[in-house]
């Protein structure tokens, strides 16, 4: 009979048998944070068709290694290649090949299960969206719950959906960071089976876990990290967890070596073509597995290398759907498709939660009333201060919304899910900017009649319409600058306070022409035939510069934030 994990799942250790096919190769990989090294001199290869358990105590560097593999972090030293692509230089190409399940589900809680997956499919630039979503949902037994919001699903269901999200593009390499944390037995069983199935179809699976019993049964190979170094790595013998536990305890007791593996010479470290899993556990292949027998040479792909150059041959496993493989520059249509998906998602979430706009509108109106009352006390005629109060209220209110633009997504992990995809960063900027522009414009259009009423203006209707156009133009540049800088502030401490500090100096050149033109239209009641003058040119230049700049620079800040 096939072995079972501690949770009771019947699994088979898989090897699809791709000679010399290496999914991931790290050479001298190191990652240093401000004051300490999280990973040091890691040499590692992960093979296609095998499950590799990443073991180690807290702080050993497991999550850092997965973050490097998912391109979320950049290595400080060494090189990391995934599916033949340099993780540092070809981030988008690497992201197209990986599927990540993190501590958090990386889903949008206010979208349904199906909407979340459809969004992810679009982020990967794949076609047949509904078909893929349905298949992914059926695979994790969530198709009947497809219309339910993620926030209403149990933790186990969310984790299954997170796995579906990670698998929906059929990745070559699956990264799982403590995926069993918080799962009940039934949910863990399902996860075990799906991990084994992923390896069965030829994907490389790297799973960070503290659960040695599960690792012994589920994984073909193990890597033990201690203090950021590989303390031991090799194939797991049998399904008995005791030898692995002894290895683990030895590694902890000895500690991390300065070079190589504790107590061993480097030349001893290359795994010999050992007997593959199915030979070690004949019962295993009579379980649920349907994969072919493992050729002995497949184990070579799991070998460590002490050389400085990767010698691996990268090859996408046969049978995997590689239609998703990206990396080449996307056509304009692809960028716009990403932008549309992001904007649609943002508007849908806002429509359901009404989290931002009601507060923003109320705040802006209160600001305008306060400004009007305060400025009136200084003595100017009431109607003359209307344009200034209008624009200051609009900028204050929209800043409140911009503060939530990306930080809201970041707080529940949805943004991380977006960024782990190869979606064009310029497309993500455009989608986020469209949404912010729409919100700011709507806010401005709501404030216009309120300003007319509060400040007793009597503009010509055509001038009022022209003022609405000025709001539209001013909001374009302002929201583009705001989206770029909210991305810049995203990784910072006290980001809510920081955004206005960064953004308001940029508002000065916007306020002068915007107030001047609004004043011309609403206060002095210029005829609509009059030349809009330099104000419109400046507002248009402002919008053009920040939209283009944001499109080009957004990727730099969002991938660092």
């Amino acid at each position, binding site marked *: 009979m096939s072995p079972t994990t501690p949770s009771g799942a019947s699994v088979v250790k898989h090897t699809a048998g791709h000679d010399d096919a290496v999914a991931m190769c790290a050479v001298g990989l190191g990652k*240093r*944070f*401000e*004051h*300490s*090294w999280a990973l*040091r001199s890691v040499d590692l290869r992960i093979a296609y068709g095998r499950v590799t358990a990443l073991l180690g105590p807290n702080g050993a560097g497991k999550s850092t290694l997965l973050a490097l593999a998912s391109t979320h972090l*950049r290595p*400080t030293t060494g090189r990391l290649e995934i599916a033949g692509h340099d993780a540092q230089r070809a981030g988008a190409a690497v992201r197209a090949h990986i599927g990540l399940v993190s501590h958090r589900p990386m889903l949008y809680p206010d979208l349904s299960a199906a909407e979340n997956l459809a969004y992810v499919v679009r982020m990967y630039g794949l076609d047949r969206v509904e078909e893929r979503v349905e298949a992914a949902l059926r695979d994790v037994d969530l198709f009947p719950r497809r219309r339910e919001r993620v926030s209403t699903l149990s933790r186990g269901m969310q984790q299954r959906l997170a796995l579906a999200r990670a698998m929906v593009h059929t990745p070559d390499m699956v990264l799982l960071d403590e995926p069993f944390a918080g799962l009940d037995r039934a949910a863990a069983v399902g996860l075990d089976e799906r991990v084994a199935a992923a390896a069965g179809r030829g994907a490389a699976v790297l799973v960070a876990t503290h659960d040695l019993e599960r690792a012994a049964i589920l994984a073909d190979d193990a890597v033990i990290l201690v*203090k*950021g170094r590989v303390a031991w790595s090799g194939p797991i013998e049998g399904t008995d967890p005791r030898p692995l536990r002894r290895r683990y305890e030895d590694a902890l007791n000895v500690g991390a070596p*300065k070079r190589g593996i504790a107590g061993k010479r480097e030349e001893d470290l290359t795994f010999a073509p050992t007997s593959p899993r199915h030979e070690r556990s004949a019962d295993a292949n009579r379980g649920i597995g349907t994969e072919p027998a493992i050729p002995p040479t497949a184990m070579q792909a799991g070998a460590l290398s002490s050389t400085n150059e990767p010698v691996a041959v990268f090859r996408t496993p046969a049978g995997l759907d590689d239609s998703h493989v990206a990396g080449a520059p996307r056509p304009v249509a692809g960028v716009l498709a990403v932008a549309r998906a992001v904007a649609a998602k943002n508007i849908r979430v806002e429509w359901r939660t009404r989290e931002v706009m009601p507060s923003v509108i109320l705040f802006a109106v209160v600001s305008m009333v306060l400004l009007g009352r305060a400025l009136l006390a200084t003595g100017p005629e009431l109607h003359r201060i209307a344009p200034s109060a209008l624009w200051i209220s609009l900028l204050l209110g929209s800043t409140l919304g911009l503060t939530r633009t990306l930080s809201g997504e970041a707080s529940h992990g949805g943004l991380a899910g977006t960024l782990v995809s190869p979606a064009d960063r310029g497309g993500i900027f455009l989608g986020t900017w469209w949404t912010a522009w729409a919100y700011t414009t709507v806010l401005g259009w709501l404030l216009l009649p309120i300003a007319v009423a509060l400040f007793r203006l009597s503009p010509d209707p055509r001038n009022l319409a022209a003022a609405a156009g000025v709001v539209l133009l001013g909001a374009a540049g302002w929201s583009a*600058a705001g989206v*770029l*800088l909210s991305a*810049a*502030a995203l*990784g*910072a*401490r*006290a*980001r809510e306070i*920081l955004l206005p*500090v*960064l953004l*308001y*100096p*940029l508002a*000065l*050149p916007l306020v*002068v*022409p915007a107030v*001047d033109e609004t004043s011309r239209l609403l206060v002095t009641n210029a005829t609509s035939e009059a030349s809009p003058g*330099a104000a419109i040119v*400046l507002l248009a*230049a*402002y919008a053009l*510069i*920040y939209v283009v*700049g944001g499109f080009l*620079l957004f990727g*730099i*800040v969002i991938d*660092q*934030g």
Partner: protein
Amino acid sequence: MDLRRLSRALAALSLGLVVVSLYVVFVRTPEERVMGERIRILFVHVGAAWVAYLSYAVTMVGAVLFLVRRDVRWDRLAAASAEWGVVLTSITLLTGSIWARSVNGWWWRWDDSRLNLTLILWFLYVGYLILRRALDGEARAAVTAVVAIAGLPAAVLNHFATLLFRTFHPDPIISRPDQAAADDPFLWALMLSLAAYTAIYAWLLVERVRVSEVRQSVRDARADLDGAT
């Protein structure tokens, strides 16, 4: 290039230029007909303003080159220049206000394009430095580089906005050489002041970069020691 040697050379140059310019500004330059002794404020003010704008340009160049080459030394240059930029912009605003108050009777005017430009630069510098303190690790260099670049169009557009709509500031004399006499003692004093400011800025910039490099070396050594234990 050996930064220590460069720093010493710049320090010697700065000292020489400061001594000469102080002598020329306060001893050799006569009182101005209208402004009297108050003209001397301008030698401090214009020099500080020139180097404040220069330091923003250096920050911009450092930011762009960091993004292109991903070499952290360019980030150190950008940050060091921004730090001195805050100091020099503050001196510019302060001396400008003091001069305006003593000559024109007001501290500040919103319709002055160069006052606005200097103020926006000050805000940009301070925001840039606050952001640097709020970010950790490798994100800091890339993100602040983008923020520095994003600030430039705002500064330029703000300058045009103020010029187009309202403006007040004495016309620049150096940009109109046809009206500046070669034997004008005020022009010579101003040029010397600019040279002294530039040399001091270059010296302090190199020193600040050197301190950043030493700090980084200490951090590296500490991290290596932690890793070895």
